[in-house]
């Protein structure tokens, strides 16, 4: 498996470690390989090591241990300017003393490209981001979204095979961000370039990526396509970090036919799917369930399934969905989401209900 992966890997991190102070590892034993043309997102809270990984790939930080390979050759000792990797920075880093065209011309000039060829490439790159008319302007004369497009065009104008993006949409407002997410993904796929994208915004990661690497504590916690990541989180960190999530704690009683019976701390029993390797009879576990998979309509709860008593604390009408806060097994922050449909009861605070779910939607993870 490892061998076949590294054969067609374009970017590869092999047992990479990074420490800034010689005492703490910021990146602990990172292994990651990307095939050509993939859009991979590194997602994680700040301080999780994702930006450090990106900077090591770009060449601005050196790995303390391990190998980083690009197209099969180690780039550990290659300085950044010889790596030929395009990069989009968080604050765009457009040179304020140059016009847009001069900014785009810069990577071509340092490659000693002729004037006509340069002009042709600049024009093509600007047209690609629909900014053809702005070549003569200065960066300060453009809006945030326009600067973002120019930064993208500048990273692509010298036709790199790999483009790195460090939270490039962080400074934009929500609407523009969503539009740019779509445009960047399209552009990357149409040009067939390999992209490594760093963000702390999980929605961005889910909507844009082929695969998402969730970082925490210097390690990749899970590396999967967005749907797998959301539906099958492998540990409680990923479950918590991606999307909204309800957590209940308890002890595993028994495991039968792939269904674990968990006794919650207040003595109630629930059915779950054992996911994490630590889930064994007698072990403490943390079970995770998505708000939209919780049912309170008796017709939809499976015959014989364990149910829990719940008290409605708060009911919020959000248009397309109802969002209800419940008190369940001592947890006052238990959220359920229900689609706004004619046949759905609207709950009222104080109401006592029973909730249940399919055992496979409730995942028993590490404590």
């Amino acid at each position, binding site marked *: 498996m490892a061998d076949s992966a590294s054969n067609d890997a374009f970017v590869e991190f092999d047992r990479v470690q990074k420490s800034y102070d010689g005492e703490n590892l910021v990146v602990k034993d990172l292994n990651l390989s990307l095939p050509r043309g993939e859009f991979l997102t590194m997602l994680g809270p700040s301080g999780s090591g994702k930006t450090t990984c990106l900077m090591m790939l*770009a*060449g*601005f930080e050196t790995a303390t241990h391990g190998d980083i390979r690009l197209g099969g050759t180690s780039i550990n000792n290659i*300085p*950044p*300017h*010889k*790596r*030929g*990797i*395009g*990069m989009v*920075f*968080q*604050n765009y*880093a457009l*040179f*304020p*003393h140059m016009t847009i065209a001069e900014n785009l011309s*810069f*990577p071509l000039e*340092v*490659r000693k490209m002729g004037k006509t060829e340069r002009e042709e490439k600049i024009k093509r790159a600007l047209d690609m981001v629909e900014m053809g008319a702005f070549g003569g302007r200065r960066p300060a004369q453009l809006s945030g979204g326009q600067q973002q497009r120019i930064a993208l065009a*500048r*990273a692509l104008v*010298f036709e790199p095979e790999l483009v*790195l993006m460090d939270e490039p949409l962080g400074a934009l407002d929500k609407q523009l961000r969503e539009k740019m997410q779509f445009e960047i993904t399209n552009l990357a796929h149409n040009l067939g370039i390999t992209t490594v994208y760093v963000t702390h915004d999980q929605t961005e990661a889910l909507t844009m990526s082929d695969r998402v690497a969730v970082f925490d504590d210097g390690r990749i916690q899970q590396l999967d396509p967005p749907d797998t990541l959301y539906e099958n989180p492998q540990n409680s960190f990923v479950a918590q970090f991606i999307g909204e999530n309800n957590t209940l704690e308890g002890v595993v009683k028994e495991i039968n036919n792939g269904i674990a019976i968990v006794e919650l701390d207040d003595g109630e029993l629930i059915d779950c799917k054992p996911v994490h390797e630590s889930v064994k009879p007698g072990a403490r576990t943390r079970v995770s369930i998505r708000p939209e998979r919780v049912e309170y309509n008796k017709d939809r709860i499976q015959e014989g399934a364990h149910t829990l008593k719940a008290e409605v604390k708060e009911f919020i009408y959000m248009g397309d969905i109802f969002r209800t806060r419940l008190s369940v097994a001592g947890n006052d922050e238990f959220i359920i989401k229900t689609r706004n449909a004619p046949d759905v009861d609207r709950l009222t605070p104080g109401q006592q209900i029973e909730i249940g779910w399919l055992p496979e939607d409730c995942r028993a993870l590490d404590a």
Partner: protein
Amino acid sequence: MSDSTQSGPMLAADGTPLKKSLSRALRMQKIRALALITPLLAFVLLTFIIPIGQMLFRSVENDIVANTLPNTVIALQDWDAASGEAPDEAVYAALAADLYVASNAKTHTRVGSRLNYETPGISSLFRKAGRKAKKWDVENDGPYKEKFIKIAKGWGDPNVWRTIQTYSPKYTNGYFLNAADMQKGSDGAEIRPESERIYITLFKRTLIMSLAITAACIALAYPVAWLLANLPSAKANLLMILVLLPFWTSLLVRTSAWKVMLQQQGVINDVLVWLGIVADDARLVMINNQLGTIIAMTHILLPFMILPMYSVMQTIQPTYLRAAKSMGATNWTAFWRVYFPLSVPGIGAGSILVFILAIGYYITPELVGGTKGVFISNRIAFHISTSLNWGLAAALGTILLAVVLILYWAYDKIVGIDNVKLG
């Protein structure tokens, strides 16, 4: 919708033109702003603008001759200086009348010393004649021509009379001509003999040495400012204290320290001799010359270059350099094409500051400059405190001010004053 199609000025809700009601609304703010700066404005006007204006005015003011010798000035109007002969009795009689008044009021010596700036020796003529004139009966003691020539032969010299005639108008360009190494000859302005020219040389030296000091400051300050802007803040603060340390020491002490360092029996020479780099009988001359002035002044003005550079460099984001490198630029290209152009406003601000400070510097050249390393300001100080020729000092100062303004204007044309940032 109808608002956009109406013609004429926009109207406010009450029907007055919008512009008018806007300016009315802003008037109160303007008055308040003005009231806030009034004390400073008055202070600056009283203690800075007015004295400087008066000083500049002295460079052309010359009413002392006309005020002290009013009759003589009128009588001299018809005298032809080119004739080569002393004026006639009428002029001497007028002078006698003027001197009688002046010597009793004790103002004749002041005219004497004023005219002495232009033709040395006149001062004593006035002193001698004044002593006698005090006791004359002006109406009856004539004729005066012989009397004056008997008191002092100089009174018969047409050159003396020419000087009095030349400087009788209430305003003169004489100080400025003098400041430019020229004088008023018998037919207009002429260049002084070579042995008397000093000011042009001094102006040139002041400009060239100030440029050298500015250049040395740029070369030394740039790396320090870069370090300051890029070190982690704890280390940067320590370095900043070191940069500012000279400010906390008296200027006089620092300059004297340079004397200790640079003199022929000083620290640097001793070390060089001890190391065997310089022979004991060929110790370097580094003080009381231009080199000494440049070294000491570069040190003293360095902080004024570092601080504006630092504050500009601080605003240059490190991602610019990273971006340049990610696009394939070597360290040098990234610096030269990206970092350096962004740091130019700091260099500009520092250079203007250092150059203008250097051009008017006084204490340091006075102490370590010897004769070859003094600036025009030392000459101005000499005229103010020693020769008391304030008119000439004012003229030199005015020229210095004009030169600075011209250079400032040229800088604006070439680099653009908008490009100067203090942070």
